[in-house]
């Protein structure tokens, strides 16, 4: 037993079925002019949707085209830009040097003049 039938009294079932049949008959018996108007109305509703979807497709296509043009223009510019890609590496290198310099290294750099003088001395003198 369907939910609809359960909701109805058993006594109603017979005439309700008749009522449904009569209503079906009335819908099936619509004249040609009315059916034609319904058909046009349905087509109009679907055409409105198609137009909107076509508009969306062209919009997305235009968006893709714009993105492609942008990327095509960006890649050569990116490759040719003077030192464009070197900057981050340089920045990283400087940071590495600064990080590597500790207090001991500062003493080493201060003694550089001594090592240069030592290097300049004649090795034979030291024997």
């Amino acid at each position: 037993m369907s939910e609809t039938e359960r909701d109805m009294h058993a006594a109603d079932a017979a005439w309700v079925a008749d009522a449904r049949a009569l209503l079906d008959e009335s819908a099936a018996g619509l004249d040609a002019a009315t059916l034609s108007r319904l058909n046009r109305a349905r087509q109009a509703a679907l055409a409105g949707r198609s137009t909107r979807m076509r508009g969306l497709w062209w919009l997305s296509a235009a968006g893709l085209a714009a993105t492609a043009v942008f990327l095509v223009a960006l890649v050569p510019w990116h490759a040719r830009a003077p030192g464009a890609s070197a900057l981050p590496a340089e920045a990283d290198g400087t940071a590495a040097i600064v990080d590597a310099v500790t207090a001991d290294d500062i003493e080493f750099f201060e003694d550089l003049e001594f090592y240069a003088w030592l290097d300049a001395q004649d090795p034979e003198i030291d024997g």
Partner: protein
Amino acid sequence: MTSTIGGAVCATFSTNCLTGSMPASLNADRANSHALDEFLRTVERRALRMAELAAIPRDEALDLVQDAMLGFVRHYAGKPPAEWPPLFYRVVDNRLNDWHRRQNVRARWIDRFRAASDDGPDDARGMLLESSDPGPLRRLAGNEAGQALESALIALPRRQRQAFLLRVWEGLDGAGTAAAMRCSEGSVKTHLSRALAALRRALKEHE
């Protein structure tokens, strides 16, 4: 990386453009349009009859159904097809409410003008609400049952008539009818029960 993505985008775009093919989503949309067409084809006649049983003249009922189809397609075409029937009849129900609201406002103004001018025996309000079209049931030769049913349905309160038509004729379940009528399932049962009792009484009078 950038050029790879750019290349992929260009390749996809050029493939679509050169072959003239549309994206898969658009093909799916075509299938959806076909399903929509089929669905509207199955409900349009019943929607028209529902409008007529709400005492709306044929021409206006056709406009109402067209408006309902447009509204349904605009707002609910993207929903799963299983959800379409209650959503479509919800739109129809809204349009029926709007129509009756407009008629009531118009009738009130006509009553005011009539009271002010008092220039004729015609009942303008009655003329507005009464359809000159006898309707398909009444056109059936010698079909008294059909005429009786149509009269009884037109005489029902709007909510009771909708509950009866959606549950009995359209075959929506309780939840679907409640969704279409924007009320609880309990209310649907109450409306349906009263509609059945009123129709039974009215049809007995015709026996």
